[in-house]
C-alpha cells in the first residue's frame, strides 16, 4: 500500500516539475527565452544618405573651419544598414582606425560624437584620441539595428570652448576687464584622412 501511495506522489511530482519547467520556459516573463540558431553572415553597410550603402564609404564627412565653442558644432548624417544574410540584429561599435596627420594638441582637443537618432543614444563627446584608443558603441544595448533595416545617425564634431584663454583688456591705458582670447595652438590645424571602423556585432 505504501508503494502505491509513493508512486502516486511520484506521478504528481513529475507532473508538477514538468509543468513548472514548461511555465518557466514559455511564460512571457521568462528570463530564459528560446534560442535561435543563426546561419548565414552579417553585413553592415554605411552611407551618407539613405541609399548607396557600401562597406567602405569614402566619406564627405568633413568637419572644417571649427573654432572653440561648446554650443556651436558641426553635424552631419551617417546612415547604417544591417544587410546581414542571417536574421540577426547588429550592435555597432565605432572606432577611429587611422589618420594621416595625427598630432597633438589637436587630437586631444577635437571632439567627436555619434547620436543614434532612433533613441538619441550617445556615448557622449570624446576626443579623437579617445575614439582611437578606446572606441565607443554607437547603438544602445537593447536597440540593435534589426536585420534589413536602415538607421540614421548624426555625427558631430566640435572644438570645446575651454580652448579659450583670457587676457587683460585695456581701454586706453586703463585696465577695464578680462577678455577672452583664443588659444593659438589649435588654430589652423587639421587631422586628415581619418578612417573610422564600424563593427556591427550580432546582438
Amino acid at each position, binding site marked *: 500500500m505504501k*508503494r502505491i501511495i509513493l*508512486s*502516486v506522489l511520484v*506521478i504528481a511530482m*513529475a*507532473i508538477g*516539475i*514538468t509543468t513548472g*519547467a*514548461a511555465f518557466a520556459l514559455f511564460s512571457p516573463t521568462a528570463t530564459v*527565452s*528560446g*534560442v535561435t*540558431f*543563426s546561419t548565414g*553572415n*552579417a*553585413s553592415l*553597410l*554605411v552611407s551618407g544618405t539613405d541609399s548607396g550603402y*557600401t*562597406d*567602405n*564609404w*569614402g*566619406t564627405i*564627412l*568633413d*568637419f*572644417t*573651419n571649427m*573654432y572653440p565653442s561648446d554650443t556651436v558644432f558641426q553635424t552631419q548624417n551617417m546612415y547604417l544598414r544591417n544587410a*546581414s544574410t*542571417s536574421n540577426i540584429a547588429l*550592435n555597432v*561599435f565605432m*572606432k577611429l*582606425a587611422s589618420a594621416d596627420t595625427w598630432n597633438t594638441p589637436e587630437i586631444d582637443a577635437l571632439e*567627436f560624437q555619434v547620436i543614434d537618432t532612433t533613441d538619441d543614444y550617445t556615448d557622449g563627446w570624446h576626443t579623437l584620441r579617445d575614439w582611437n584608443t578606446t572606441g565607443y558603441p554607437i547603438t544602445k*544595448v537593447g536597440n540593435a539595428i534589426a536585420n534589413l533595416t536602415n538607421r540614421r545617425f548624426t555625427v558631430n*564634431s566640435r572644438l570645446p570652448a575651454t580652448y579659450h584663454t583670457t*587676457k587683460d*583688456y585695456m581701454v*586706453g*591705458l586703463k585696465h577695464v576687464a578680462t577678455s577672452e582670447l*583664443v588659444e*593659438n595652438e589649435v588654430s*589652423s590645424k*587639421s*587631422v*586628415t*584622412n*581619418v*578612417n*573610422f*571602423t564600424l*563593427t*556591427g*556585432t*550580432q546582438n
Partner: protein
Amino acid sequence: MLKKIIENTIFIALIIILGISVSPALPFKNIPRTYVVVSGSMETTIKTGSIVLTKPVNPKEIKVGDIVAFTSPSNSKDVILHRIFGIKSESPLRFSTKGDNNNSPDAWDLMDVGILGKQVYAVPYIGHIAAFVRKPLGFGLIIVLPALLFIIFQILNIKKYIKEEIDKQVKSKTIPLMFFFLSMFSVSSLFFTTFALAKLTSTATVSGTIFSTKDFAPPVTILDSIPPNTNTSPLTITYTSDDSDIDHVDLCYYFNDGIVENCSPNFDFNFPKGQGTYYFFTRATDMAGNIEDPDINPTNATIYDITPPTTNYVVNTGSTSFSGLSLLSENNWTIIGNGQSLADNSFQLGIGDSDSIDYLIQRLLLPQNLSSSLTFSYNYSSDDISEYDNLSVGVSTINSIFPIFSFGGTGTTDWQTISRSLLQWAGQTIDIYFKLTNTDPTYLTTTILKDINVSPLDLRTGDTTPAEFLATDLGVGIDTSPAPTDISIGDTQINISFIDLATNIESEHSISIVTLPPVVLNKISSSTVTIYNNTDSAVDLSTYSLDVGTTTILSGTIPSFTSQDISLTVGTTSVGLLNNSFIVDSTTFEPLSIAIWQRQSDGLGPWTRINAPMSFDLQSRLSQSKITFNVSGLGTTLANMNYEILYTEGIIPRQIAGTILPHTIDSNGTASRDFFLGTCSSGSCTPASGIGSSFVVTFSGTTKTFILN
C-alpha cells in the same frame, strides 16, 4: 524486453542531457564544459548547432588560432566562442578575437579573466537538441513525452502494486525511483543550459574624414623696443610677428594718458599730436580676418620732445659770494585785491570770490650788468568748470609789461618751482607782479606763492669763482649739463648749452658776467687816483700797487665799502691796479688836464668823463607851479647825495628832500629832478598859492639860495 530498452535509452539520454546542460553552470571553473553553438560566425569550422567541449586553460598558454569560449566583453550575459586573432598586449594580457566567418576582428579587447575555456572538440547538430527542448515541440518530445511514459509506467506499476498488494509479491522498485530523480535533475538543469554565441560581425569603414579648425587665432605682433625719448620725426617703428599670414598691421597710439585710439598703417611715425607722450601698440589683421587683441604695454612709449632746454638760472657756488641773496624785501609786498600773507613769507591770492583779479607786487632795482633771476614756487587750484582762470607772472617797467610765466586751467597742481632770468632788466627798476585772474566768482580759484626770490650772480670777491648753471627743460629733462665753470676776474661772458634726454641741444647762449676784484679803481684825475673797497671787510693794501706809468706800491688797509684817494701824478693815459703783480682793474682815458674820469663806486658802470666840478642850480617854471633841480659834475663817490629844497607857501615853510640815486645820473654826470609845488589827489593836482620867491637848496653839504620869479 522492449520496455527495458526504452527505459535504458531514456535513462542514457537523460544522463547526456544532464551532462551537457549542467557542466557550464556548475560553480567550478576548472572543469570541462560544454556549450551549444547557436550562431554561425565560426562556420565552417564549427557549425551552428554544434556542441563544443571546452577544457580549462591557463590564459598564458593560449596561442593565436586557439578557439576559446569567453564571456562577452560587451555583454556579460553572453558567452562567445571565437578564435584568438592576436595578442594585443602581454601585460595585462589582452587578446583580439575574430569569428572565422567574419570579415573583421571583434571590436572588443578580450581580457584574460573573461576566458572560460579552450575548445577541444565539437560535435555538430547535437546542440539543436538543447535548443529544441526550449521549443514547445522539443519540450513535448524530450521532456513531456518521457515524463508521460514514466507516469504511464508508474501507473502500470501502481496497477501491479495493487495486484502485488493482493498477491503480496515483492519486486524491485529501484529503477522507477532512479528515473524520477534523474528526470528531476535533467529537467531542472534545463534552466541552466548555456549557449555559446559564435557572434556574427561585419565591419564597415568610413574613410577619408577631415577634421580641421579654422584660423581663429588672432595674430600676435610685438613692438620692437622704442626709445623712451626722441626728437626724431618721423620715427621708424618696427615690430615682430609670429603669424605668417598677416594681412596688414596698424600702428596705434594713445597720446598722453588719453583713451582715444589712433591707428594708421604708417610706421614712419610723425607725431601728429606734437610734443608729448605717445603710447604705442600694434594691431594686426591676418588673412582670415582675425584682429589682434593688442597687448597694450605702457612701457611701449616714447616722449616726443623737440624743445631744447633753456638755461635761466646761474648758481654761484663760491662760498664768499652774494649768490642767493634775495633782492626782495619781505615786508615790501603790495597786495591788491583779495590776497593775504601767510606764514613762512608765503602769500595766497584769490581768497573768497568777490574780486576778479588779485595782485602781489614788489618794486625793486635790479643790479646793473648782473644776471639776476626770479625763482618762486606756486600751488594753483581752480574749481572752475572751464579753463578761463590763470596765474600770470611778469615784469612791469615804466614803459611796458613783460609776462614771463603763466599757468591756467582747472584742477589743482602740486608745488611747482619756476625760475626765470631777469638779465634783460639789469640796472632797471621793475615791478615783479603775480596776477591771479578769476573770471567767474562762483568758482574759487586760488594760488599760494612761496620762496619768491630774486638773486643776482655777484662775484665780488676772489680771483676765480666756480659757477654752476641750472637749466630747465619743459620736456623729458636734462641729460648732460656743462661742468661747473671757473669764472675768472676779467671774464665777461660764459657760453652755455645744455642737452636734454631727447638729444635736443640748447642753442648756445651767453651770460654776461661781471667779475670784480675786492678793490677797484673808482676815480682818476691828474693828481689823484681813488680806489674803493668793494667788500664787507677791510682789505690789506700791502700787496697792491698802482701803475700810472710809474709804479706806486700801496700800503695800509682800506676799510669796507670805503674810498681812498692816492695822491700821485698820472702821466699816462692808462691806469692799472695790480694785486701781487697781476692787473685786477685798469682803464684807459683821454688826457686828464681838463677832466676827471669816474665810475660808480662799486666798480660797475661805464667810466664817465666829468668835465667840470660838481655844481647845481634851480630853474624856475613857476608858471606851471614847477621847479627843476639840475646837478652836473656828479660822481658817485660823493658821500652825501642828499638834496633839500626849502621854500615858503604863504607863511608856511615847505621842504623838498631826496637823494640823487646813482642810476639816475647820466653819462655826463648830470641829473635833474622836476618838482610840482602843490597837492595831488586821485590824479588831479592843485597848484599851491603864495609861493615865496626864495629857494634854499642844499646838496652834498653845499647850500645855495635861488631867487625865482
